[in-house]
């Protein structure tokens, strides 16, 4: 599969193997390398975003001042000066980078708050959607994918494949509208949107996720209400993510099922459930981990559309609004955050590999 490391001590019976030169712990080397790459990536993100926003024919002044205020040169000039828009582009860029190094992401033009504050506010909302989605999707996706692989070609498999196909082929925005129509409008089974009924006040902020915070504060009615608001968006996001996972898990598991070691496990007389649970699952997890990273990325994409339909005040909506308002500090902040998440997810995936697969274990 992947690189096979020879030279593990167990294999060598020689008494006189050469002592190896002392090197930094491989994990440290690995992390250092990844960190460098991440830093480069983030720098790239700032360049791309900066360039893109400045290619846009729109002017942030227009986006942020009232129509009549725009007719007043003094107001416009004041705005430009305040946000440094009167400086040359490169100066703006380097100033931004300089501030970034001190942890200052700048102040959002549209909300007037520090971008960091905004992120702190919106990220938990998105996480409140993403975490349950990911957990559900992983559980369901792995289970169903494995089932389909084992039942390869039979009715269950066909059903799962068609289901996954449907999930993958459904436009997320359309699905959101459909569930909204059915579950809220027709059946009244779920609230229409938002994070909390207006009758409740958000719980004291700890994690920023209402369900968790409310539970921590012992406000069970609030937690229950917040959980109800999660249902529809999570349903939509989960159905899409599950579809992605199922397809992948199924083919990954099928591949594993062809391996000699699975046949060998059967040949040992192990009951099927043991073979599946212990041998198949373990080996199939490696690709599952890979695709979870991918699924997470596509989940973040999905939230843009889903959040806007369910009025979910999360990162997706923030990104959308920042983009349409040409609010550079916010766009950069979101991009940086997402890129950071992306690299972190990748790093986690790589570390998980090592955990699952001893052949690529680092230490």
């Amino acid at each position, binding site marked *: 599969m992947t690189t096979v490391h020879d030279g593990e001590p167990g294999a060598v019976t020689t008494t006189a193997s050469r002592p190896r030169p002392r090197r930094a712990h491989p994990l440290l080397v690995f992390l250092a390398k990844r960190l460098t790459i991440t830093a480069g990536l983030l720098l790239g993100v700032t360049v791309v975003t900066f360039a893109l926003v400045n290619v846009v024919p729109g002017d942030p002044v227009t986006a942020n001042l009232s129509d009549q205020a725009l007719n007043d040169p003094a107001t416009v000039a004041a705005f430009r000066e305040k946000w440094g828009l009167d400086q040359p582009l490169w100066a703006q860029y380097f100033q931004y980078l300089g501030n970034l190094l001190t942890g200052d992401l700048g102040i959002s033009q549209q909300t007037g708050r520090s971008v960091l504050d905004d992120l702190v506010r919106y990220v938990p909302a998105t996480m409140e959607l993403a975490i349950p989605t990911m957990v559900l999707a992983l559980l369901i996706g792995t289970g169903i994918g494995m089932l389909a692989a084992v039942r390869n070609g039979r009715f269950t498999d*066909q059903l799962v494949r068609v289901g996954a196909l449907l999930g993958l082929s459904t436009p997320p925005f359309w699905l959101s509208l459909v569930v909204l129509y059915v579950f809220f*409008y027709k059946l009244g089974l779920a609230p229409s949107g938002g994070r909390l009924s207006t009758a409740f006040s958000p719980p004291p902020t700890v994690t920023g996720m209402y369900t968790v915070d409310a539970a921590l504060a012992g406000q069970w009615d609030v937690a229950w209400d917040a959980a109800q608001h999660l249902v529809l968006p999570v349903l939509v996001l989960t159905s899409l993510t599950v579809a992605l996972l199922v397809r992948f898990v199924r083919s990954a598991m099928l591949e594993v099922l062809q391996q000699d070691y699975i046949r060998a496990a059967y040949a040992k007389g192990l009951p099927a459930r043991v073979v599946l649970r212990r041998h198949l699952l373990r080996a199939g997890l490696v690709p599952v981990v890979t695709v979870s990273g991918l699924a997470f990325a596509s989940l973040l994409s999905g939230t843009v559309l889903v959040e806007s339909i369910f009025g979910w005040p999360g990162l997706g909506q923030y990104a959308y609004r920042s983009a349409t308002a040409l609010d550079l500090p916010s766009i950069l902040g979101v991009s940086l955050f997402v890129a950071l998440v992306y690299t972190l997810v990748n790093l986690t995936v790589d570390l998980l590999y090592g955990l699952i697969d001893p052949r690529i274990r680092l230490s």
Partner: protein
Amino acid sequence: MTTIAPDPVAPDPKVDRALSRRRWLGRLRGGSTRPVWRQPVTLAALVILGGWLLVAIFAPLIAPYDPLAQSPDAYASPSAAHWFGTDSLGRDILSRVIHGARLSIPLALAIVSLALLVGGLLGLLAGYLGRLADEALMRLTDLVFAFPQIILAMAVTAAFGPNTRNAVLALVIVSWPVYARVIRSAVISMRGDDYLNAARLLGVGPVKALRRDVLPNSIGPAIVLATLELGNAVLLLAALSFLGLGPRPPAAEWGSMVALGSQDLSMWWVSVFPGLAILTVVMAFNVLGDALRDRLDPRYAKGR
């Protein structure tokens, strides 16, 4: 010592029993290599896609109304006159859905082939040149991957102005890296392949080798991927249109039709039918991509 065995093909009840008990195990090693027309799902997809292609080609002949013609009969629910109802401007939704095929399908093809072209070329060069070129390409693809697809596409379209061309451009920008990576890794894995080595040992120059030995053998997985991505392209295009960043109105684009319908959900037909159109086309593309992959990619074809 031995006797002639019964005809091995003839059904033997005992064998059948043993086999049926064992079938679950047998299935483990994979099922059919049946031809496409024996696989109901693939067949259905082919029929659906063929149908859509016909619809796209003959749209003006099939559509009962002019897709742009407005009428005072706004928000008419589905009826004999308007099978799919009408929208807020009294336009016939059936006709618009039919004409929508003329946009979505060719545009998806354009997006995917452009992305394949760009990504393929870059991937080929990076894989072949290696070192710095390769590193640069990988970092560039990383960069694109670091943005959620739809957000980047949104930003690009917003930056260059929303219209068909820019939507296609944006989607090409967000989707070329996959092809670049696939081709690159195919090329890299092939750099060690002996037929390439053999050709080079015979004195074949690098450009010729690239064209004759590298490209034809690395393009396969990319083409399979491209087929699988066609559905995704339809979806992304629809999403951009839904956000108002796709083809300009009054074009009958499915995503923007869903968006129009979303303004008043109680008129469910306005968004349901274009949504179903997207669904079926994307599904057909996906099934077809799968079938092609099973067929062409030995990794998947094996015992499946």
